[in-house]
């Protein structure tokens, strides 16, 4: 029997109390469905008893209405849009474990695209909407680097940094997910229409809001908790002192995600926030070459993994080079018994994998 999302969708719409309070409510009854089916008196009593619900009579009234029509409309829209649902309470569902860990974890997510992208924690890249060309470039490069390391890029598809990060990732056929502050069917901002299509095609879009919702101002900071929740590290590219990016960075730190900040010009208002983050203890990104290491891909680990993935001929040559540093193709041909054209081919392949270095004809292991 398939899981009934209707009660999750119903509870997910009770936005007058935080998700945590709703999770608490579910914990009292066992499941969203049980909450819906609970007797009126029982619910009233629960609301009166527990401090989390104090002064939440508006929410109580809404729950007691037991009106499933809006939730039903939402599920119909989702079906029509081709969206997939991910519920916090669905047993053996697709809900990412790393997202479950955060405070205020969303009850229900609407997704469209490749859901595998969020199975493992990705890298979130956030920043101001009104970014400088420098910020846009850095965001693109970070997106590209993360993609090449096989990490998903999570952002919010806003103008500026977000869009640049998504694009940088998509340009190298990487995996990217965009978390919306609007309904899935609403492309906001409209200027990103092309990108919106590309992300649906090659990535994943996620929202916890109603279909057709144009987004309320308070939704955008809220969705930031999902962005950081879906990632293991957050890169803040540019942002002023009072920007949403700083809020995101704060949320990420609360969720125990590492915050990496890109230093900027100290005269530029758009850089003050990120520079402040560095002053407060965020990891500064001092060079793009450093990024793989900061993202957890150290040189030794990369090398060990690459060596493990070598073909048998490649590893034969690699071993020979390690044994006789400075040897040349002739030596390698003689001792490996391979054709000379094969030796040249394998050598350049090892060089491309950054396992060996060549000076003239001499080969050295890196």
């Amino acid at each position, binding site marked *: 029997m398939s899981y009934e999302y209707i009660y999750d969708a119903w509870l997910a719409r009770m936005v007058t109390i935080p998700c945590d309070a709703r999770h608490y409510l579910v914990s009292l009854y066992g499941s969203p469905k049980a909450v819906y089916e609970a007797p009126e008196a029982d619910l009233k009593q629960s609301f009166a008893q527990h401090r989390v619900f104090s002064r939440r009579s508006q929410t109580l009234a809404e729950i007691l209405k037991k009106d499933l029509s809006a939730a039903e409309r939402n599920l119909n829209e989702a079906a029509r849009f081709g969206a997939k649902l991910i519920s916090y309470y669905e047993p053996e569902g697709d809900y990412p474990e790393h997202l479950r860990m955060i405070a205020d974890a969303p009850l229900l997510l609407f997704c469209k695209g490749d859901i595998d992208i969020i199975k493992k924690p990705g890298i979130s890249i956030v920043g101001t909407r009104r970014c400088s060309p420098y910020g846009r470039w850095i965001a693109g490069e970070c997106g590209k680097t993360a993609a090449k390391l096989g990490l998903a890029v999570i952002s919010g598809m806003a103008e500026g940094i977000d869009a640049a990060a998504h694009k940088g990732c998509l340009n190298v056929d990487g995996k990217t997910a965009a978390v919306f502050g609007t309904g899935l069917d609403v492309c906001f901002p409209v200027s990103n229409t092309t990108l919106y299509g590309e992300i649906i095609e090659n990535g994943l879009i996620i929202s916890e809001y109603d279909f057709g919702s144009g987004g309320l101002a308070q939704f955008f900071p809220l969705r930031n908790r999902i962005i950081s929740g879906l990632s293991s590290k957050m890169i803040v590219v540019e942002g002023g002192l009072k920007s949403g990016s700083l809020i995101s960075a704060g949320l990420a730190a609360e969720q125990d995600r590492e915050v990496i900040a890109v230093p900027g010009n100290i005269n530029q208002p758009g850089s003050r926030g990120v520079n402040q983050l560095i002053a407060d203890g965020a990891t500064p990104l001092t060079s793009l070459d450093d990024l793989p290491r900061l993202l957890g891909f150290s040189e030794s680990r990369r090398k060990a993994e690459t060596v493990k993935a070598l073909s048998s001929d490649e590893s034969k040559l690699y071993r020979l080079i390690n044994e006789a540093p*400075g040897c*040349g193709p*002739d030596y390698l*041909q003689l*001792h490996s018994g391979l054709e*000379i054209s094969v030796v*040249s081919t394998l050598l350049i*392949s090892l060089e*491309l994998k950054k396992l060996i270095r060549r000076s*003239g004809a001499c080969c050295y292991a890196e």
Partner: protein
Amino acid sequence: MFSSVITASILGLDVECSRAEVNVASGLPKFLIVGLADQAVKEASDRIRAAVVNCGFEFPDRRVTVNLTPAGRSKNGSHYDLPIAIGLLLACGQLTACRSLEDTAFIGELSLDGSVNPVDGILPMIIGLQKLGIERVMLPQGNIGEARLLRGVELYPVSSLAQAAGHVNGDSPVRPAAHAAGGAGAARAQVPDFSEILGQESVKRAAQVAAAGMHGMLMIGPPGVGKSMVGKRIPGILPPMTYKEQMDVTQIYSIAGELSPERPVISERPYRAPHHSMSAAALIGGGRVPHPGEISLAHCGVLFLDELPEFSSHTIDMLRTPMEEGRVMINRAEWRCSFPSQFMLVAAMNPCRCGYYGDPVRKCTCTETDRQRYIGRISGPLLDRIDIHIAMERVVYGDMSGSARKPGLSTADLREAVIYASEIQAQRYKNCGIDRNSQLTPALIKRFCVLEPDASDIIRGAFESLSLSARSYHRILKVARTVADIGGSERIRSADILEALSYRCPERFFK
């Protein structure tokens, strides 16, 4: 009395039909030659006077005027002697033509004793005349070797003015010379064999790829590793020349005066190894009278520049355009002409001044500045035009010698694949106006260099990790095309791309 005899004037490879007009009129005895004649032509008057007399004719004691048409174009060379002498004899009535001479051209230089000496440039002259509708050519006996390559023209070789005169008046006609097939009878030049090189198998392979696609090749390595040995052996692995190529090359050698009775036809691919003290004009051609340079003499063959950084940088930079275009244009104030220069550049150099930079055993004594200065003599654009770069290692004895070693690749081994690959290329480029992969234009690359999906991933990745320039892209594809041709593959596979990449890492040496 007036006569007019057809001959040819030549500038570079451009031939024009020219006439020697002779007028013998009453007046004080004088012999005048007009029509922008140069020194060699002016001096003809004395040679002709002696030759005419020594052949038993009489030199007229009257006013003789010779006009070489077109009078506005400068004439040079000594081949006008014979037509002027015949014209003179006709004009003063000592000779009567038995048939019209309007389809016959005369070319030849006279000795004082009346014998006819060979001249330079006979082959392009006859080819040019043939295009202009001339069917018969009288030429020096000494030039018949190169001229008999041609079909569709009757050749009358003569060895003296008397013989020529006898033919013209019909007393003793000269038998037309028989034609010969290209390259027939020419002994195969002695090119040393690749098997004599110990080790250096990777360089031999690179030479094979270079030869198969006529790619430029630069060998970098310490002194004494056999760079020059490899260079000398490359002509031996090139495919045989076609008839057309033989004609093209022989024409150039004809103008340059490099043909001899022993070698009347260039049937083997040329190998030119000029010394590094050479001047720019000697390399690309030029001079007062257009003379083909080393790059044209190496047309269809190998131009080997040993010790590349020792050449003047001004000189070697002149290679850039001819390498790209396969033709060199020489412009002077009075004339311009072009020579073909589709050569395979093979260059060799040390990695630094002392030669031991990067050597695992011997210490390099150069300072960084010395090295930069040495390397810097070769310009980036030139390096970019050399498709294949290969590092040579020092041969280490011990396990390299003795029975452990398989016999190395020989010329015959290498040549087989080169011929196979060049046949594939000839077939593929039949209607494209090119013959070899090295000549591919970007449009043709798009058409013929189709990559397998994993191969295009590799080249994309390589650009970033090896920080190659975008310019290198096409060069790599061309070399990969050749590697694929040697392997008999229609598409370029990932191994082909990788091997091509391994031949193109100038950054490895020139950083």
